[in-house]
């Protein structure tokens, strides 16, 4: 252990602990900006400077390891003056139109300014001289360089967590900026729209593109029938933006709130998640049969899941040669969208041209996905507007709802029924677990051999997870799988996806089925989820997801009565012609820059 003294208090920490972390142990708060728990140390904003006895300069507490006998003071006049200067300098480069800013009151720079730089600014305003640009080209987010403070959290996120580096630091000195490849629009570079940078941007330089006003317009248009679907991960995170602690489930209140907002029908993406399991599970079994029984060497295995639009765009850019390995299933959002303007319209006897289909997603990439030209199977844009969890919270606040005291409500029908298998789509490993619960039962006629259906090996925060299940006692139709060992892998965060893809490329991936989610922790850590994010917050959300599952009456997708009904009434059977028309898609190769 290392012993040091901070503000005259003794503290012992493990070797390698930073001064910042040591101070935290003593509950001494040191302000930070570039520092982020999910990312490597940068030490470039300098806000966290402290005084070390005997040192010539101040030191960045986030970047300096504690050493034996160190004496630190976090609040000397020298520190305060320098820190005030630093905040003032940041403000002088930053367009401070706070009242108009989407991040108003959720901005780390604003909070610091509140503490250190209120009143008249000391320094000259540099903003006007800089030819800052605002990039609105992506359907998912806006990159506003005039709000950027160059903390490089976004750059580190894009490289360390996502292995994309669609953005990097460019130029130097006064011209230093965060840039895509040669300043190309974000819509025309490798960006996956995952929104992880948005989650970590301390200011309003990276924010989601909002469609709140368009949704309000639709709600208030008497001519329109507005349906809304909510993704599994939204219900375990929305509360954070409305005063709840991370990990509190607010499903019932959220449903009620959506009704109060005026949506004509409040439905559940979980329904189409269950449907996805039927389609994707069947697709996998068909591929396995082709490979194992028919000896078809052209079958693309391993098969990859296709629910995560960030992952889809990643593979389209980075590994296009493996596009045939992707499941052709649309994501639950898009399956829902295609059915809303066909099946639902027909059943409810509504003109599909009058339906406005809205989805609430933990995700910014879903905005891009909804805009894809392939996503018009209904003859219309299948999903008209995608809102993030954060945008829904804004709408709830705008409507003046007393969220905490709302009664719990249940989803409307049809397409509002779900199972626990669908809920866990929101966490890494969840799609795999849901698929196994169903596929195993189809093949063997028995439940998966895990206590209470909880397939624990596929759960948790490990970046890459592997498991295998021995298939024994098959029913006759699937007897060719008798004795086979189904090998699976799961990755979340694209840096981990890339690890698996490298193995696949090298031919060293002995898997049949791989689940990949673009975001850390899966959708619970999605780019549209409440800010801030860190490992503990994501773990709390994940815990909430699994308790939501345990509390469901039905926990296997094939038992969802609405899923059973839609096959009977409309789709015929999984992977049917109709299914392919509405629920499956194809992918396109994209440039790798």
């Amino acid at each position, binding site marked *: 252990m290392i012993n040091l003294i901070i503000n005259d208090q003794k503290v012992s920490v493990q070797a390698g602990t930073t001064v910042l972390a040591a101070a935290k142990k003593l509950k001494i708060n040191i302000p930070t900006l570039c520092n982020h728990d999910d990312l490597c140390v940068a030490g470039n904003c300098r806000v966290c400077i402290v005084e070390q006895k005997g040192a010539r300069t101040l030191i960045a507490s986030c970047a300096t390891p504690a050493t034996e006998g160190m004496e630190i003071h976090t609040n000397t006049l020298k520190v305060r003056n320098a820190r005030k200067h630093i905040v003032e300098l940041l403000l002088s480069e930053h367009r401070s139109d706070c009242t108009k800013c989407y991040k108003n009151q959720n901005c780390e720079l604003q909070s610091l300014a509140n503490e250190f730089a209120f009143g008249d600014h000391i320094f000259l305003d540099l903003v006007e001289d800089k030819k800052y640009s605002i990039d609105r080209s992506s359907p998912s987010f806006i990159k506003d360089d005039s709000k950027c403070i160059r903390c490089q959290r976004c750059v580190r996120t894009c490289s360390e967590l996502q292995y994309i580096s669609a953005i990097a630091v460019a130029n130097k000195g006064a011209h230093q900026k965060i840039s895509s490849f040669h300043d190309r629009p974000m819509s025309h570079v*490798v960006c996956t729209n995952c929104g992880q940078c948005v989650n970590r941007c301390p200011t309003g330089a990276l924010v989601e593109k909002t469609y709140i006003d368009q949704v309000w317009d639709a709600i208030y248009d008497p001519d329109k029938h507005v349906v809304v679907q909510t993704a599994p991960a939204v219900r375990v995170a929305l509360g954070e933006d409305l005063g709840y602690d991370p990990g509190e489930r607010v499903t019932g209140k959220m449903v009620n709130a959506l009704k109060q907002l005026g949506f004509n029908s409040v439905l559940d993406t979980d329904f189409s998640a269950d449907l996805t399991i039927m389609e994707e599970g069947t697709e996998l079994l068909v591929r396995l049969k082709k490979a194992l029984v028919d000896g078809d060497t052209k079958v693309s295995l391993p098969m990859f899941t296709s629910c995560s639009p960030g992952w889809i765009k990643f593979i389209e850019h980075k590994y296009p040669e493996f596009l045939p390995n992707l499941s052709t299933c649309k994501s639950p959002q898009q399956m829902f969208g295609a059915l809303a303007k066909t099946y639902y319209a027909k059943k409810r006897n509504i003109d599909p041209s009058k339906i406005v289909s809205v989805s609430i997603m933990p995700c910014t990439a879903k905005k891009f996905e909804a805009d894809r030209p392939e996503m018009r199977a209904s003859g219309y844009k299948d999903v008209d507007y995608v809102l993030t969890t954060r945008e829904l919270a804004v709408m709830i606040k705008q409507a003046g709802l007393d969220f905490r005291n709302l009664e719990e409500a249940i989803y409307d029908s049809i397409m509002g029924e779900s199972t626990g298998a669908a809920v866990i789509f929101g966490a890494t490993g969840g799609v795999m677990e849901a698929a196994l619960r169903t596929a195993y039962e189809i093949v063997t006629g028995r439940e998966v051999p895990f206590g209470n259906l909880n397939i624990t090996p596929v759960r948790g925060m490990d970046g890459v997870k592997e498991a295998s299940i021995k298939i024994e006692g098959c029913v006759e139709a699937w007897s060719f799988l008798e004795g086979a060992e189904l090998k699976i892998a799961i990755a979340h965060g694209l840096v981990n996806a890339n690890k698996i893809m490298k193995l696949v490329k090298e031919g060293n991936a002995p898997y049949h089925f791989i689940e990949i989610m673009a975001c850390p922790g899966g959708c619970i850590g999605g780019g549209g989820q409440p800010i801030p994010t860190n490992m503990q917050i994501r773990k709390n959300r994940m815990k909430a997801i699994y308790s939501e599952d345990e509390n469901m009456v039905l926990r296997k997708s094939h038992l969802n009565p609405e899923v059973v009904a839609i096959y009977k009434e409309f789709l015929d059977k999984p992977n049917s012609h109709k299914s392919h028309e509405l629920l499956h898609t194809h992918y396109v190769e994209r440039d*790798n*820059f």
Partner: protein
Amino acid sequence: MYQVGNLVKELSDKHGRVRESLMPILQEIVQKHNYLNDEAMVEVARELDISAAEVYGTASFYTFLDTQVKGKYVIRVCKTITCSMKGKSDIIHTIEDMLKIRVGETTTDKQFSLIETNCIGWCHKAPAILINELPYTELTPEKVSEIIKDYMQK
């Protein structure tokens, strides 16, 4: 003509497909083509398996790794204090008049680019310029116009 062709592949073979080869590879491309075009940077990114944005980000850090079109002869005029004191402006005016371009510009025939640069280490023989790699020092307007004339005839 700027043709990337096999150049990046050859340079990657020569220097190795590792991150630390990035600078030598970019430097050699610039030696041949005077600047880095987008195609070249994308190729380098592909060969070294790094992101194109990072290649651009790295290149744009270094003054000599230009990512904008540059002429066959890049004239860099030192603007740091001693050269500035010893007549840098006259040198620039002379070159501007001769080439009919301003600082920061490239002649339409893509023969010359004129830029200012920071200290090139010839303060004792100021004012000084670099034309591509070669330094020319203790310049006067007369001297520099002779030098530029020579290059124009090359």
